[in-house]
């Protein structure tokens, strides 16, 4: 079986996405047991390579691999040979000496997964590369939606709000949400809206006037660097919060709020929403574990139904 990478959401067909979500669902009972571990990937080796800070993604990949009984190796840029100037190609060659089955990588540069993949036999899973893609975030978002809003996501209206220009999450989500039939509207400051993004088949708006139409409101984190003097993406966080921040008064009943985390209270999200049980934010974190277990499992055993999800347990 040739190795299979997951670098971009468009590496997956709709059937692949549905299979991954079904597989993740089949892992849920494992996560409710007292002993939350299955022997499925015993003897397999999974390397987590995080060249950028991460809490959620790195911890959930690490735990997902352990829940499946794989051996894991976690490396960060600080304290590694990268600090001594080793190139990604050489890191790939070095790690390949241990014959890992999967290398999960987060990297600040788009294209890093392609460089890694070209220099290793291991399957590469993208845990975020620059502003390019974050496919596993998209899959866990889809999983949370399916668990909370019903299996059929077709026709659902999603508003993605915030810094679209710098968001790998937005790019993966647009593709994944559309793949499952959802309608995507992007809202944000004109300075943070990539020119030409409409060609992905999304609506673009610069204010929240039509927020009432949304079934799901997906908020993106606003980075403090966007208000640095000279950057001129935003005049202030205060103005961002006034124009694009979402609080309860802006919501109508039934609208569900999502956020990839970490959140900025009082900027893109008001505390009254952050603390409300109706939001899906904590569920997204929970989904991360089941979905990443499914991704690791399918990457190793294959995406065919022959490896039916029932056999997993």
């Amino acid at each position: 079986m040739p190795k299979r990478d997951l670098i971009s959401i468009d590496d997956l067909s709709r059937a692949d996405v549905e299979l991954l979500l079904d597989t993740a669902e089949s892992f849920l009972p494992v996560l409710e047991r007292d002993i939350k571990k299955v022997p499925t990937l015993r003897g397999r080796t999974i390397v987590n390579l995080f060249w950028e800070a991460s809490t959620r993604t790195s911890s959930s990949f690490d735990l997902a691999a352990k829940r499946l009984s794989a051996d894991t190796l976690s490396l960060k840029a600080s304290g590694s040979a990268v600090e001594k100037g080793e190139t990604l190609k050489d890191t790939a060659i070095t790690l390949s000496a241990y014959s890992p089955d999967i290398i999960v990588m987060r990297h600040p540069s788009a294209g890093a997964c392609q460089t890694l993949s070209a220099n290793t036999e291991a399957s590469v899973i993208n845990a975020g590369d620059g502003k390019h893609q974050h496919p596993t975030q998209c899959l866990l978002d889809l999983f949370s939606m399916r668990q909370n809003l019903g299996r059929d996501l077709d026709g659902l209206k999603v508003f993605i709000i915030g810094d679209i220009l710098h968001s790998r999450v937005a790019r993966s989500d647009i593709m994944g949400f559309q793949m499952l039939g959802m309608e995507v509207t992007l809202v944000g400051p004109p300075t943070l809206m990539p020119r030409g993004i409409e060609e992905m088949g999304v609506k673009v708006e610069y204010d929240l006037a039509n927020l009432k139409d949304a079934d799901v409101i997906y908020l993106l984190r606003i980075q403090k660097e966007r208000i640095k003097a000279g950057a001129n993406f935003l005049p202030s966080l205060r103005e961002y919060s006034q124009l694009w921040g979402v609080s309860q008064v802006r919501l109508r009943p039934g609208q569900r709020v999502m956020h990839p985390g970490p959140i900025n209270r009082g900027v893109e999200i008001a505390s009254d929403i952050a603390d409300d049980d109706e939001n899906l934010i904590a569920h997204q974190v929970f989904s991360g574990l089941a979905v990443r277990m499914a991704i690791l499992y399918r990457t190793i055993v294959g995406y065919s139904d022959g490896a039916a999800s029932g056999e997993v347990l």
Partner: protein
Amino acid sequence: MERTWCKSAPAAEVLVKGGRVVDPEAGVDAVQDILISKGKVADSGKGLKPGKGTTVVDAGGMLVLPGFVDLHTHLRTPGREDEEDIASGSAAAAAGGYVAVFGMANTDPVVDTATVLRGLAETARADAVIPVGFFAAVTRGLAGEQLTEMGELGAAGAVAFSDDGRPLATAALIRRALQYVKVSGRFVAVHAQDDSLFKGGQMHEGPVSARLGLTGIPSLCESLDVSRTLDIAEYEDAAVHVCHVSTAASLAAIERAKSAGVKVTAEVTPHHLTLNDEAIAALDPNLKMNPPLRAESDRKALVAALKSGLVDCVATDHAPHASEEKDVPFEEAPFGTIGLDTAFAVLYEELVKVKAIDLATLVTRMSTAPARLAGLRPPSLAKGAVADLCVIDTKAPWTVTSETLQSRSSNSAWLGRRFETRVRLTVAAGRVAWQDLA
């Protein structure tokens, strides 16, 4: 005035038999023999007989063309001979059918004094397999502050002046450069780019960069600087050459200037003529160049401009990089693709074969037009001319690999690509510079 240098070699004695001779300058497009003797075109016509010691090249079904001239090459010498030197760069050019190339000044040290230029001329005289000449910098160290001694550099043989790789950052600097260059009788070639709009750019700004999440380089970044430069050229009545034009908006500015009588000329690269930004999707660092591959609408406008003559010539912007520099993530890779080995194959197969441009026009834009801009005698196949020609087999499959490329570097946008167009023979300045005879 000597503006190119190459090593000595015996004068060619070659009979090229039965090829399709296309010499737009002479209005020739016919199957003919060409006899080269003592390095000159001694005769042309049917049924020519070889003399004693004459190499006979059976060119049946092949093209016999005036050799090409490249006004925009990075020979990386001095300083980065690991990427290219004058021997390897001129060999790549010869293998691509070129009979003269001109290296840009962004070397280490920069070509900003007559001493450096004379040193390069010496090296070319020892190593170059075809005539090679050099641009000198507009500003010392390409620092954008102090003009170079253009008088002395021009007298030492600089073909023209360019800070290529970097724009002339202010209107005042452009103005002074365009004024002072007149002492040399040569021109300034500009790398048009507004740095404030370029900042952090990775690829053309548009739907593809939006989808990929790469910082965009807007077409405005180039066209604004082209417009400003041409306004200054008009005001100063000075000659200016626009390097590697990549956008339709820049073409519009050039068209306005040309019709206003501004002394502007322009070049376009094979990659901008044949590839667009969609090619970036796989994040292959060999497709990262500056200016970036643009939108399909820009590409089509460039082809139309090459056809009409709005753009005067093809130039490769051959930019070798060491494998360790390019074998990194797309966002960390330097800009540039090599192009000398493949330029004609790319343009013949992508433009001439599909009838986007006719062969005679392509030959003019690759040969006589750039030769005139460089101040060289245009390559000609007329009787009595110094032999500057190439013989091209259009049914000879080959694949672009680090082995088949003559360049020392293999960062080609076409790496792995199969072509059927192969240069069988190049005669430059009357000497056989390349042969790949079956």
